[in-house]
């Protein structure tokens, strides 16, 4: 009885205090936390609340523009101008990937179902450089706030790293390990990324972008690829909800690749694209393959990957909208 008299009032005080703190946090501090750390939730809510016909899931290529671009519209906005009838909304942010897309889809309100989902199959996102990106912890923490728990619970989970948190130095170790020791799928002197980039650096016509391209695209996608498994879950989810989904393989600077990094890298990229097409052909998802659509002049010169100048984004939008029109007709039969 003594123990009960000792503990019960203390536990009650803590409970009452927890409720007060929770209410205080929810009303005064949580909105700011969402702004700074949980903005994916706001982005998702805004997108879903507009109830668009098509949701375009992308990373930075959608909206990144070249500083001299006169037309700074995103790919999604340009697609909208071509589609006219169907309303399209984009969900995009830097370094975002299939894992985040899946979480976003799962948070979609039950009273809303888009006519179609278009999602980037960003080749680079299948590589370790992207999977172990320095931005990943921030994105994972961001997801902690995107649920229906009380704000204070989300904050505690974020403070105690209750998400797939990998310290920065461990991510760096994983990237370095792959670069230095993971065998590439060719039989020549460049057995690893490190050796490959070194061989590029030793050339008299060395362009640092060439080495960057190798680092970002020098991998082979297989069935165990972490990002591919996430995409598979997305297909499964969309099939269960009867939402048609189209994957878009974005144009890559293949011309620049063969020029700056060698023909081998271009071939590897095409191999990966073929693999993805074959993989998703067995599913309900359809694939638009635009990987070789643009020549080097459409890309940012100082960036190794899928970032387009205004006319590049225009070309992507044109191609996508043209194919969407066809595919939309098909998807209506789903």
């Amino acid at each position, binding site marked *: 009885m003594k123990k009960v008299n000792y503990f019960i009032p203390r536990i009650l005080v803590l409970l009452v205090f927890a409720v007060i703190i929770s209410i205080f946090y929810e009303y005064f501090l949580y909105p700011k936390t969402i702004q700074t750390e949980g903005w994916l939730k706001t982005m998702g809510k805004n997108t879903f609340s507009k109830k668009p016909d098509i949701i375009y899931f992308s990373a930075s290529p959608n909206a990144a523009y070249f500083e001299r671009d006169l037309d700074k519209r995103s790919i999604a906005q340009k697609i909208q101008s071509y589609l006219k009838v169907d309303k399209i909304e984009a969900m995009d942010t830097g370094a975002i990937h299939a894992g985040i897309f899946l979480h976003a889809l799962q948070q979609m309100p039950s009273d809303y179902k888009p006519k179609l989902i278009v999602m980037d199959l960003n080749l680079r996102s299948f590589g370790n450089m992207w999977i172990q990106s320095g931005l990943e912890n921030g994105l994972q923490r961001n997801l902690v706030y995107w649920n229906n728990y009380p704000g204070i619970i989300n*904050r505690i989970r974020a403070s105690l790293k209750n998400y797939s948190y990998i310290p920065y130095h461990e991510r760096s170790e994983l990237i370095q390990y792959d670069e*230095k020791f993971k065998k590439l799928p060719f039989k020549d002197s460049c057995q690893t990324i*490190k050796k490959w980039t070194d061989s590029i650096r030793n050339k008299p016509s060395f362009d640092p972008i060439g080495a960057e391209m190798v680092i970002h695209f020098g991998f082979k996608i297989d069935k165990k690829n972490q990002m591919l498994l996430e995409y598979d879950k997305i297909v499964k989810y969309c099939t269960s909800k009867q939402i048609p989904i189209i994957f878009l393989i974005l144009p890559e600077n293949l011309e620049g690749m063969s020029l700056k990094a060698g023909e081998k890298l271009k071939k590897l990229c095409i191999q990966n694209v073929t693999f993805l097409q074959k993989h998703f052909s067995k599913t309900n998802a359809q694939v638009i393959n635009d990987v070789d659509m643009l020549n080097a002049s459409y890309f940012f010169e100082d960036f190794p990957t899928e970032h387009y100048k205004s006319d590049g984004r225009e070309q992507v939008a044109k191609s996508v909208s043209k194919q969407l029109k066809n595919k939309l007709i098909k998807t209506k039969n789903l």
Partner: protein
Amino acid sequence: MLFTTLDFFIFLPIVLIGYYAINQKYRWIFLLIASYFFYAGWKMSYLGLIVFSTVIDYFASNLIYKAKNQIRRRWLLALSLVSNFSLLILFKYFHFLIGGSSWFKHLANTNDDAMWLQFVFEYGIPVGISFYTFQSVSYTVDVYRRRIEPENNLAKFALYITFFPQLVAGPIERYEHLHPQIFKKFKPKWEHFRTGLQIMLCGFFLKMTIADNIGTFVAPIFEQPEYYSIFIKWSAVVLFGIQIYTDFNGYTLIAIGCAQFFGVQLMNNFQLPYGSYSLKEFWSRWHISLSTWFRDYVYIPLGGSKSNKFRWFLAIFATFFLSGLWHGAMVNFIYWGILHGVYYLIEQAFFPVKKGRILPLWEKVVRWIFTMSVVSFGWLLFRIDQMRKVKLFFTSTLNSISDINFEYSLYIPLVLFIVYELIIRKNRPDEFLANKSLLTRWTMYLILISYILLFANTGDLPFIYFQF
């Protein structure tokens, strides 16, 4: 497993329940398994090294104790020291001594084995290796000096090395202090848990709300000092002094509180170091377990204060130099150690404080400002990653950022920190709270809990001392 993760909040209660559920006779075995599990949480491969170190010191110390021949004893001690310090040097200093050199870099580019070595020693530094190596070395040396008798049971010795609350960042305990406490018969009382929780609460408050929020604030300033005004840069240096103190003291308090649950009183590591009027005093209050380690195993064997001036000078210098080197294989840590060594010598040679002398207020103020200036400048050397950045802290460009938005998540805990230090002073939180009324205690608990809940940093900031 970090103390500030949900994993630890699940791990600790499970260990406590398991520990007290089993027969007292076998509790230590459970604690040993839990400690290895805790350590393996970082990387399984780290376990091999700690087991190797444990086995070597166990056998070496037992053989030293049994050996009657002094030369044999010395050889055995040398074997233990060489194997311990070899591991430390290999993992901590390989890159500094060999890996970073141009010939080795060239070799690594052409030879796969050399590349593998470079990779292992760059990324494979086992967490807490400096801490457990020093703890293990102190044991073997104490056996050699016949201050203690060696442990006959390898597993019991292993628990002394791996006791999880203090395994990865100290306090660096001595055998005669820690070992008997772990194995004594212990009947837990609510009092132990209450004081343990009080101490841990303060630890979490210092680490999660003060250290990490300051850390987020100062990181970009140290990264690119050229963009900030001199005032902001030096504010960042002072703030870093608070960050490293609250980070390390926070960790230590969590460790002390956690050990308390198992009936173990770990030594205090800090006693209001920023209230020191001299560097000598600062070093008697900062990272006490390491300072006393260096005193007992480096400074005194080198002659200490009882030798002639020249030897004393060398002993001080060597102690501070090694103390800098202990923190890591970077030139800035060595400069940091040398800076403290030089100022310590100047202070002791020209401005010593005689024992028992009460300082007048003006002298206290002057000495405090001087001491804190040296300590702060030391933190600048400690924090920067490239020596060229030091001079950037003394210059400012015309368009540098001179206005920074001090957020409430920074300045409120900062004020609380100052209040905390002034109230608690040299005491441990549980000592301070021991004679306080229920209302005072609970007011303090609720303030600390609310600040942790509302302002704990959510960024990617591990404990600073884990890297050592």
